[in-house]
C-alpha cells in the first residue's frame, strides 16, 4: 500500500536561505517579461546558471569534496521552488543538478565523480537525458540505440529524440542497449555518458509550436566512447533509470510550471481591481490546491531525508501536480475571457497563450498520466 504523507515543516536552517534567494532573484529575474519567465525550466541561460554556481547554489546536495554544498534535500527544495516560481531560466543546469549529478554520485566510479561533479557545480558541464527514440515513446524497453564494446571502449549507434537541451549540453546520459535484442525488453539496457562533442554525434533541434527549440533529435553514427563512459552497472540501466524517475517525480518541479501565469494574473487582478466572486473563487481554488500539494511535496522530501524511497507516493503527487499545472491556464483563460471589457496587459496575454499551448507537455515529461495511474493502481494493491 501507499504510505501516508505527514505534514512536515521545512527546517529553519533551510528556510533561512529563502530571503537571500528571493533578493537575488528579484534583481536577476524580475526584469524579464513574464512570458519569457514562463519558460522557466525550459529557459536556457548559461550565464544565469553560472551566477547561481558562484553563489554556491548548484550541486547543493552534492558532497563538499566534489564541489557541492553538502546540504540536504530541504535546502534544495527551498531553492528550487523559489527559482521555479520566479520563472528563473534554469534549464542550462537543471538536469545536471537534479538528476545527472545525483546519479553519478550514486553509481559513478570515484574517477567519474571527480571528473563530472565539480564541473556540474561550476556550471561547466550541462547534461541532457537520452531516453525516447522515434519508435519508443513511453515504451522504453523497445529502444534500439546500441553501444557495442570494443578495444577503445564503446561504439555508439542509433538516435534519441525529444531530448531537452541537447544542443546546449556537453553531455548526455543515454539509455542504450549493450546486450540482447528488443525482445529481451528491459534486460541488457545500460546508461552511457556521451560526450556530445565527439565525432559522429549530430544534434538536430526540433522547433516547437511556441516557436522555441528545446527538444532535439540526436544521432549517433559510430561514436567512439571511452571505456569509462558506462555509468553504473552494465545491464542495470533500467533499474537505474527508474530510481532516477522516482527522484524526478518528487520535487517541486511538478507544481510550479504555471506559477508565473498565476502570479502575473494576480498582479493584474489587483491592478485592474478585478475582485469579483468568480475570480476570487478561482484564485482561492488554485492557491489551496497548490498549498496542499506543496505540503505533500515537502512531506516527500522528508521521506527522502529519512532515506526512504517514496516512489509511488511521488507518482501520486506528480499526477495531482500536473492536474493543477494544466488547469491553471484553462481556468485563468476562461476568466480573462469572461470579463472581455477589462484590458489585459500584453505580457499577461502572451504568458497565458504560451502556457495554454505548452501545458499538455507537462504530462509528457516523466511519464504520461495513464502510465502514472497504472503505477498508482499497482501501488494500491489492485491486482
Amino acid at each position, binding site marked *: 500500500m*501507499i504510505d*501516508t*504523507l*505527514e*505534514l512536515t*515543516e521545512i527546517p529553519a536552517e533551510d528556510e533561512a536561505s*529563502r530571503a537571500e534567494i528571493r533578493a537575488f532573484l528579484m534583481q536577476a529575474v524580475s526584469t524579464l517579461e513574464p512570458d519569457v519567465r514562463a519558460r522557466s525550466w525550459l529557459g536556457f541561460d548559461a550565464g544565469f546558471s553560472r551566477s547561481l554556481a558562484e553563489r554556491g547554489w548548484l550541486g547543493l546536495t552534492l558532497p563538499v569534496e566534489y564541489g557541492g554544498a553538502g546540504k540536504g534535500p530541504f535546502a534544495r527544495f527551498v531553492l528550487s*521552488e*523559489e527559482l521555479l*516560481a520566479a520563472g528563473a531560466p534554469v534549464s542550462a543546469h537543471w538536469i545536471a543538478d537534479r538528476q545527472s549529478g545525483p546519479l553519478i554520485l550514486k553509481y559513478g566510479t570515484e574517477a567519474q565523480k571527480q571528473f563530472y561533479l565539480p564541473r556540474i557545480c561550476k556550471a561547466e558541464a550541462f547534461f541532457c537525458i537520452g531516453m525516447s527514440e522515434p519508435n519508443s515513446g513511453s515504451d522504453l524497453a523497445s529502444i534500439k540505440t546500441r553501444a557495442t564494446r570494443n578495444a577503445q571502449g564503446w561504439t555508439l549507434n542509433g538516435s534519441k529524440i525529444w531530448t531537452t537541451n541537447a544542443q546546449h549540453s556537453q553531455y548526455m546520459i543515454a539509455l542504450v542497449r549493450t546486450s540482447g535484442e528488443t525482445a529481451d525488453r528491459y534486460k541488457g539496457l545500460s546508461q552511457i555518458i556521451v560526450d556530445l562533442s565527439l565525432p559522429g554525434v549530430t544534434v538536430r533541434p526540433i522547433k516547437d509550436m511556441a516557436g522555441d527549440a528545446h527538444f532535439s533529435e540526436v544521432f549517433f553514427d559510430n561514436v567512439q566512447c571511452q571505456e569509462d563512459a558506462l555509468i553504473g552497472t552494465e545491464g542495470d540501466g533500467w533499474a537505474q533509470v527508474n530510481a532516477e524517475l522516482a527522484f524526478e517525480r518528487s520535487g517541486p518541479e511538478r507544481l510550479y510550471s504555471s*506559477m508565473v501565469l*498565476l*502570479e502575473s494574473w*494576480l498582479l493584474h*487582478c*489587483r491592478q485592474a481591481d478585478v*475582485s469579483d*466572486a468568480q*475570480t*476570487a*473563487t*478561482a*484564485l*482561492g*481554488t*488554485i*492557491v*489551496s*490546491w*497548490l*498549498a*496542499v*500539494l*506543496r*505540503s*505533500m511535496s*515537502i*512531506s516527500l522530501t522528508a521521506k527522502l531525508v529519512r532515506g526512504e524511497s517514496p516512489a509511488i*507516493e511521488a507518482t*501520486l*503527487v506528480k*499526477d*495531482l501536480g500536473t*492536474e493543477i499545472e494544466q488547469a491553471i491556464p484553462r481556468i485563468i483563460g476562461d476568466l480573462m475571457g469572461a470579463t472581455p471589457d477589462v484590458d489585459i496587459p500584453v505580457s499577461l496575454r502572451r504568458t497565458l497563450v504560451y502556457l495554454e499551448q505548452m501545458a499538455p507537455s507537462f504530462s509528457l515529461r516523466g511519464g504520461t498520466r*495513464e502510465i*502514472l*495511474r*497504472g503505477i*498508482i*493502481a499497482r501501488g*494500491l*494493491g*489492485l*491486482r
Partner: protein
Amino acid sequence: MDNLFTDSVERLFAEIATPEVIRLIEGGGRADALWQGLEDSGFLDVLLPEESEGAGLSLADVFPLFLLAGRYAVPVPFVQTLLARAWLHAAGIKAPPGSIAIAGFGVRQHGDALEAGTVAFGRVADWVLAQVEAQHVLLPVAAGRRELDSGHGSLNASLRWAAQPTDAVLIAADALPRIGLAALAAASHAPLLAGAASRVLELTLDYANQRTQFGKNIGRFQAIQNQISIMAERTWAARMAAQLACQGSGWEPGYLRAAVGKSRCSEAAAVIADIGHAVHGAIGITEEYDLQLYTRRLREWRLAAGTETYWARQIGTHLLQQSNHTALSFICEDISP
C-alpha cells in the same frame, strides 16, 4: 500523540460505532449509549489543559483521532464537541456534559424565536454552539424543535426555539477566541471528510480486487485503475488538507488553514463518493451494503459549514487584498505550517 493512544481510540470506535449502530441512529434510534461510551472514554476533554482536567493535547496531536472519527463515520459530533469544549474553555466557560454541534452559519433571530438551519449532527446533538447576531451562545437542543430537513438517514437537522431557552449558556464577548464559529466548523469537518474518504477508498479497493467481470478482477481494467487512482490522489490530498486544518501547537485552528482544509476536502468528497459508487455498481447503493454509510457522510459533510466554493472564495479574497504577498509567499507564510 503516540500510536498506543490512537489505537485505543480506534478500538473504541470499532466497538461502539459499528455499522449497525450507525444504521440504528440514522433510522431514528437514540445516540445516548454511544455518546456515554465516548464520555466514559475520557477523550472528550483532551484538548483542555491538564489543570482543567484535560490532557493538554494540541490540535495536531488529536488530528489522528479526528480522522478516525471520519473513518468510522461516528454518528455523533465527536470532533465538534472536542473543539467546542476547547473553544468554550478558551472563552472562560466550562462546557456542560453532552454532545455539541457547531452552527457555523445560518442562525437567525425572528422576534423572540431562534432558528439554526441545517445543522450538521443537529439530529443527535445535545447542544448547539452558535452565534446569534453578536451574541455567542450554547443552545440546548432539547428545549427546541428539530426538523429533519435533509432526507433519509441524514444526521442534519434544522432547529427552532420559540424563545431563547432559559438554560442557554451565554458567552461573554470580551474573552472570545480568535477563531470564529464558521472556521471552527470548517476545521471540524475537514478531518471527518478525509477519514471517511479513506474508508470509501478502502472499500472500493477491496471490491475491485474481489469482483470479477469479463473473466478478471475489475481492478485490472485500465479504466477502473484510472478512476481509482484519481480517487486515491484525492484521498491523499484531502488527508493533507485536513492535517493543515488541524495544525498548531495549541487547540485553536487557523482561519486560512481551516479554509484550505474544508475547501479541498469538500472538493474531494464528491469525487470520491462518485467514483466509489461507480466502481461498486448497483450493490453500492443498497441499504445493506456499508458503502453508503460513508458516502452519505461525505456528501453531508461536504455541504456542511461551507462548500469548496465558499471557502475558496474566502481564500482568494484574502490573497487579492494582501498586496504585499505573491501567491507563493502567501502559501509559504500564511498557509503552510
